[in-house]
């Protein structure tokens, strides 16, 4: 089917040339045919002219022989044996003249010039026919008079010549018979000569006409053929020139397109080799040197992960096979917005599109388009992030607007202060590895503290950012080394934190404006502080309990907190955040576990703050849970499993020493880190805060029953 259409296309394209060549062939065959036919005719004419000339000569030889015979006989030459030259001559020329004349009249095989048989055609023109007829009119009586000379011994008379016939003539004619013949010959000799002359002339005219006709036909045929050749030549050359011009133009346009397009454009064949032409941008887009006929897959291999590479190879094979529709497999393209890494390790996104190129219905190549879509992808991601951020900002706003402006302000100032501290420490880094590890521990504590505050405030945006920040820091810590480029990462994260904080400052302004509109609260400052504290802690406990599948109730006894200085309340708040977090995550068991141990399903957390000594401004603050208690065995096990100690070393530690381990940076018994536990920073933060208020931390715990952290301090 496809072949038919290709043939049709070729026929249409070269129609003029095909017609010209056909005409040439027809002319050629025509001229050749005419030539062939005419050459026959001319040969026939030559025979006729030749023989008609011979007739003239034969008529004269007949007359001459007759006269000689008469003379010979008159001189008494014997005729008995018939061996007389003139008589023999007569007996030779008369049959020859007679058969030739008959040949002219009827068309017959006669003896030719060399006496070999030759076909003499009947005369054609009316004039020739007349000459032959008139000659007959004279020749037939003449022949009658010559008959006695041909009488045979058997009494028959045969004028005609028969080859190899042995003839015995009677030779019985008399002088009178001979005289009559001579007389007739004298009378008619000239007439016959003239008639044969005229016949010859007429035959020559016919032959001339034929020759002229042949020449004309040849001339016309050759002229047509010549024009044809000129036309064909002209047509072919002009077609070629036009084709060349179009080809040059097309090539120029292709080159222009290929040198202008921003996309990488190239073809790959079934062997996965690049074509001879591709767009100039290809090297730029791929950031690789590309040569014609280069294999494509090795280029790809250096850019993408093995799995993507394997999938692409399969995908290309799929496209080269013609079983599946191109549009159906487009979604499988593994190089759609694919992430690539160049020699400098910079990541970019490229988009490769593959389209089949068909030739005669079969897939010959794939046309590949490559675009650098890094900008688009990163803009899309930024947009997504921005959307996500906006959503979270709205959440924060809704959450935070319900908080007291004072609390927001406190969070803003505290966080900003912490970030400043971090930045200051970064600025003054002493660049020893030990110093850097300390700095890292400091930053982790600081960020963990912010995370807790953010959680208590319900500022999810800050909490999750701080959580991610911590995760990255813990990777560095676990590596046991802080590298120069880690600082760049930390700085970028820090900048991100600052920016989030900036968005919060807008909310604070709005929130403060809202607060101004409110009528002054009827509650006292002390009561307000107590309320804020509860509002901070209670939702946090509820959230962590819900997240970790615990059922917890909380009891507050913190009436005295209102009379404490704000500085101390802030620290107690931070301590409480870390402690309740630990209490829920590490203390309170799941309802099933509690039931199994014969405890009520619901766990209880008690938070209390009161003066322990009314005269000396001594206070105590505690957080107690009725959970599983601190298990020394679990701490030991954790120390060994995390590789911090050998089993021997851990065994040698006393219970007290083991418990002290939980206050060291990086210790956690939670098996997986999430935002509420697991980094081993919480206890670290508590120690730091307790120090800040010059307090003491007392721990009391019984396995399976309770854990109590008590902070003793002076107001």
């Amino acid at each position, binding site marked *: 089917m496809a072949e038919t259409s290709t043939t049709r296309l070729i026929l249409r394209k070269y129609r003029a040339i095909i017609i010209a060549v056909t005409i040439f062939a027809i002319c050629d065959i025509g001229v050749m045919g005419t030539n062939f036919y005419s050459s026959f005719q001319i040969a026939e004419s030559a025979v006729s002219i030749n023989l008609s000339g011979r007739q003239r000569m034969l008529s004269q030889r007949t007359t001459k022989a007759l006269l000689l015979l008469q003379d010979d006989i008159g001189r008494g030459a014997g005729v008995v044996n018939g061996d007389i030259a003139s008589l023999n001559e007569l007996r030779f020329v008369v049959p020859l003249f007679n058969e030739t004349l008959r040949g002219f009249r009827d068309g017959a095989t006669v003896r030719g010039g060399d006496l070999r048989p030759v076909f003499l055609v009947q005369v054609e023109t009316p004039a020739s026919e007349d000459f032959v007829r008139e000659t007959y009119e004279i020749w037939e009586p003449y022949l009658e008079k010559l008959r006695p000379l041909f009488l045979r011994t058997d009494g028959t008379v045969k004028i005609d010549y028969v080859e190899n016939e042995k003839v015995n003539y009677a030779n019985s004619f008399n002088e009178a018979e001979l005289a009559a013949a001579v007389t007739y010959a004298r009378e008619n000799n000239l007439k016959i000569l003239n008639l044969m002359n005229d016949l010859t002339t007429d035959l020559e005219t016919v032959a001339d006409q034929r020759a002229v006709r042949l020449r004309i036909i040849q001339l016309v045929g050759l002229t047509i053929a010549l024009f044809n050749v000129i036309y064909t030549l002209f047509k072919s050359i002009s077609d070629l020139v036009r084709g060349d011009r179009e080809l040059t133009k097309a090539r120029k346009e292709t080159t222009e397109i290929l040198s202008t397009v921003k996309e990488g454009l190239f073809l790959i064949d079934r062997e996965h080799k690049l074509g001879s032409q591709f767009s100039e941008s290809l090297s730029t887009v791929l950031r690789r040197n590309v040569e014609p006929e280069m294999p494509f897959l090795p280029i790809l291999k250096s850019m993408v992960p093995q799995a993507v590479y394997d999938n692409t190879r399969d995908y290309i094979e799929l496209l080269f096979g013609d079983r599946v529709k191109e549009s159906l497999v487009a979604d499988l393209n593994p190089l759609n917005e694919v992430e690539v890494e160049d020699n400098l390790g*910079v*990541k970019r996104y490229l988009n490769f599109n593959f389209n089949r190129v068909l030739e005669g219905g079969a897939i010959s190549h794939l046309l590949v388009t490559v675009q650098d879509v890094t900008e688009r992808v990163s803009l899309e991601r930024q947009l997504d992030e921005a959307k996500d951020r906006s959503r979270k900002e709205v959440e924060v706003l809704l959450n935070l607007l319900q908080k007291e402006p004072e609390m927001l302000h406190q969070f803003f100032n505290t966080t900003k202060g912490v970030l400043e501290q971090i930045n200051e420490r*970064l600025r003054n880094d002493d660049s020893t590895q030990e110093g850097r590890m300390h700095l890292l521990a400091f930053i982790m504590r600081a960020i963990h503290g912010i995370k807790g505050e953010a959680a208590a405030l319900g500022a999810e945006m800050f909490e999750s950012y701080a*959580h991610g920040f911590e995760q*990255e820091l813990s990777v560095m810590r676990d590596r046991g080394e802080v590298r*120069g480029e880690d600082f760049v990462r930390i700085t970028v994260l820090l900048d991100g934190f600052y920016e989030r904080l900036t968005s919060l400052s807008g909310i604070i302004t709005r929130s403060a404006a809202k607060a101004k509109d409110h009528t002054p609260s009827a509650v006292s400052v002390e009561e307000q502080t107590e309320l804020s504290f509860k509002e901070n802690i209670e939702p946090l406990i509820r959230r962590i309990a819900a997240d970790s599948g615990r059922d917890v109730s909380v009891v507050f006894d913190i009436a005295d907190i209102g009379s404490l200085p704000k500085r101390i309340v802030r620290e107690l708040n931070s301590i409480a955040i870390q402690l309740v977090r630990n209490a829920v995550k590490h203390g309170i068991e799941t309802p099933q576990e509690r039931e199994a141990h014969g405890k009520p399903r619901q766990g209880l957390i008690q938070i209390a703050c009161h003066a322990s000594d009314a005269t000396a401004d001594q206070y105590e603050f505690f957080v107690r849970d009725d959970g599983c208690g601190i298990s020394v065995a679990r701490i030991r096990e954790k120390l060994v499993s995390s590789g911090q100690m050998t089993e021997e070393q851990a065994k040698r530690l006393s219970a007290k020493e083991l418990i002290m381990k939980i206050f060291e940076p990086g210790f956690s018994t939670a098996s997986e880190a999430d935002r509420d536990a697991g980094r081993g920073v919480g206890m670290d933060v508590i120690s730091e805060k307790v120090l800040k208020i010059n307090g003491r931390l007392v721990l009391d715990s019984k396995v399976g029953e309770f854990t109590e952290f008590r902070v003793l301090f002076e107001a």
Partner: protein
Amino acid sequence: MAADVTALSDIDEREIQVFVEAVSRYFSQITGQKAEIRAAFLTNNERALPVFEFTGMIKISGDYYGAIYFSTDRFLLSRLLQIMNEPRHGEEHLLDAVGEIANTLAGNARQHFGEMMEVSVPLTMDGKESKNLKGLRDRPYVIMVRWKQYEASVIIDIKRKK
């Protein structure tokens, strides 16, 4: 919960690394010894940019705008000139040297960011001229680098067009 630590800021750590690596590579090509990141911090835009005595600056326009600075003291530059067999260590030559490093930054930026970033020819400043340089970002990035015992800083103060 997925960690949300995508930098909110409009520039990326990798963008910063391009400039820092350019400086590092320059030192390793010229002297055979890399310059290393010693520290990184944010500076406050309320204050002048923390620069050394000699500063080379390239201005950025296009999708990003702002400037990148390379700043160091005369000791480092003198040592560098010495290694490059340049006997003259006058003020002018020190400025040329800092300008050349800024030019390396420009070249790398052009190569790396292509059309996204239009980069000016480097400008050089001495201590007087750079005394009151102000940043464009709220908190420009300061990357302290160390080469041998010398100190230098790369300040990234560019923003992406919104």
